């Protein structure tokens, strides 16, 4: 083996020396290039080098950030805060998100990549979220053009079973009512902006924020990128955090709005749904969206594409890839790309607090509206609906449905609401996409 390597080197040496002999004229420009390049390089003493190096450490950059000259004088304090304490606070927030994701199991699939992206985005000197850093490259490649949330929607569509909704169509109304969280919060955001001096959300920004109430991560990211990209980080973090906190946020609201008797309502077994129904359904929804609200079709179309591939039953390998490799890869990059918007100077602004507060309001209002809608439906004749499944109308598939089930079983251990709650749950996804379409349509 050794002899082989020696021979290899000798052969290469021969070839390349021959080349080299021919290359006398070829080298001149290289040398020039070198001189040009080295001209920029200035010799320094080793002490200067060490001190120069120390200046580029993160410690120095955090303790004493350089202020560019184009920052006006009255903003220097703010700028310095964002570059030093701001970054450190963001590290703390990121660690909090790590803890929520790992120890508390809050939507780790997206919160972990988002939080790690946020950690990387707040590193001084390296500018990883800048246009040439890899987070910036990822953001440009798939978030600025809204491609990643669309792909996620395809994957989620492939994972969704519309069977429960098809077997009990009227529960779709619950998924509609929950969208009240979106529009109620829109009014709230606008009111906050008009009547306080702290917040000044535009109508577009208010709309983007209110979508948090849709409890649908990719929809929130899609709309935020379209209407208010400057708020993307805060909206995405709020959206996924609250989706993750569904088991904490929803039960008190659900219990407050229902009577003990209502919570014990039993629902009849769901009828069997044929394969043909499931196959036709995604196309039917898409056709309705085309006829009535074409602006919602990018979202609904992507979702129904994934669902249709699954239900067709003839492209199992595409379905499998959609549900696994493709959605996982996209999730990693979507998370990192969203995280790149958690830079201190973008996240640590008063707006973020507003977004967090409005987000939880949106979520709660949506939950309440879903429950109340069920109670309204029970005023009409016909089979009764357990209002606990109304809260599942916010989306957050399948967690919200599980919460309905769990709360139901607290009052009657034999009352399995899970599949009944899946109906409003998936209707909530459609409802949010419709609401998103309305907002897109208004601001087009």
């Amino acid at each position: 083996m050794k002899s082989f390597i020696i021979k290899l080197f000798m052969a290469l040496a021969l070839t390349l020396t021959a080349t080299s002999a021919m290359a006398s004229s070829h080298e001149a420009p290289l040398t020039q290039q070198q001189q040009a390049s080295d001209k920029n390089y200035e010799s320094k003493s080793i002490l200067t080098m060490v001190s120069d190096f120390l200046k580029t450490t993160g410690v120095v950059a955090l303790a004493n950030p350089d202020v560019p000259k184009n920052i006006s004088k009255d903003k220097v304090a703010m700028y310095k805060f964002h570059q030093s304490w701001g970054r450190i606070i963001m590290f703390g927030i990121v660690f909090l998100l790590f803890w929520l994701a790992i120890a508390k199991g809050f939507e780790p699939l997206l919160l972990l990549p988002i939080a790690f992206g946020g950690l990387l985005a707040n590193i001084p000197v390296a500018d990883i979220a800048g246009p040439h850093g890899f987070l910036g490259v990822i953001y440009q490649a798939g978030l600025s053009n809204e491609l990643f949330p669309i792909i996620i929607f395809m994957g989620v569509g492939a994972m969704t079973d519309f069977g429960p909704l098809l077997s009990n169509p009227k529960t779709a109304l619950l998924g509609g009512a929950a969208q009240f969280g979106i529009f109620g919060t829109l009014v709230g955001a606008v009111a906050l902006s008009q009547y306080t001096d702290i917040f000044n959300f535009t109508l577009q920004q208010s709309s983007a924020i209110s979508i948090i109430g849709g409890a649908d991560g990719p929809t929130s990211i899609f709309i935020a990128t379209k209407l208010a990209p400057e708020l993307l980080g805060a909206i995405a973090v709020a959206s996924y955090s609250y989706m993750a906190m569904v088991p904490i946020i929803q039960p008190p609201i659900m219990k407050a709005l229902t009577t003990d008797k209502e919570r014990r309502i039993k629902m009849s077994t769901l009828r069997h749904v044929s394969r043909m129904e499931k196959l036709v359904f995604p196309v039917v929804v898409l056709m309705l969206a085309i006829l009535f609200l074409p602006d919602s079709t990018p979202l609904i179309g992507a979702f129904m594409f994934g669902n249709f591939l699954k239900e067709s039953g003839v492209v199992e390998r595409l379905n499998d890839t959609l549900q696994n490799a493709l959605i996982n890869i996209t999730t990693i990059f979507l998370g990192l790309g969203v995280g790149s918007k958690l830079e201190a100077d973008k996240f640590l602004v008063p707006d973020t607090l507003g977004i967090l507060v409005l987000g939880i309001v949106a979520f709660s209002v949506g939950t309440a509206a879903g429950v109340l809608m069920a109670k309204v439906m029970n005023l009409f004749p016909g089979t009764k609906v357990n209002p606990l499944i109304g809260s599942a109308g916010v989306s957050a598939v399948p967690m919200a449905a599980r919460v309905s089930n769990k709360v139901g079983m607290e009052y009657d251990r034999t009352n399995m609401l899970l599949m009944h709650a899946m109906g409003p749950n998936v209707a909530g996804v459609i409802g949010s996409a419709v609401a998103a379409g309305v907002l897109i349509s208004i601001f087009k």
Partner: protein
Amino acid sequence: METNLVVEGLKFMVLGMGIVFAFLGVLILVMNVMSKLIHKYFPEPDPTQAPVVVKGGEDKKKVVAAIFAAIMEDKKSQL
């Protein structure tokens, strides 16, 4: 003349919730019609078994794999 944004927001709400409910309302109607049509014109040969047949092959594979895994598991712990 200044715009009262809150009023605008309220208008959005009316319009938005109206459209959401209209959309889902129509969807409910269509679902009901669709189900009836499909049950009439494309009845499943034996509705309860059809999906089993389709999926059955795959599921059985999974079962076999699962049993195999279980056996391996057993063997491992005996090693």
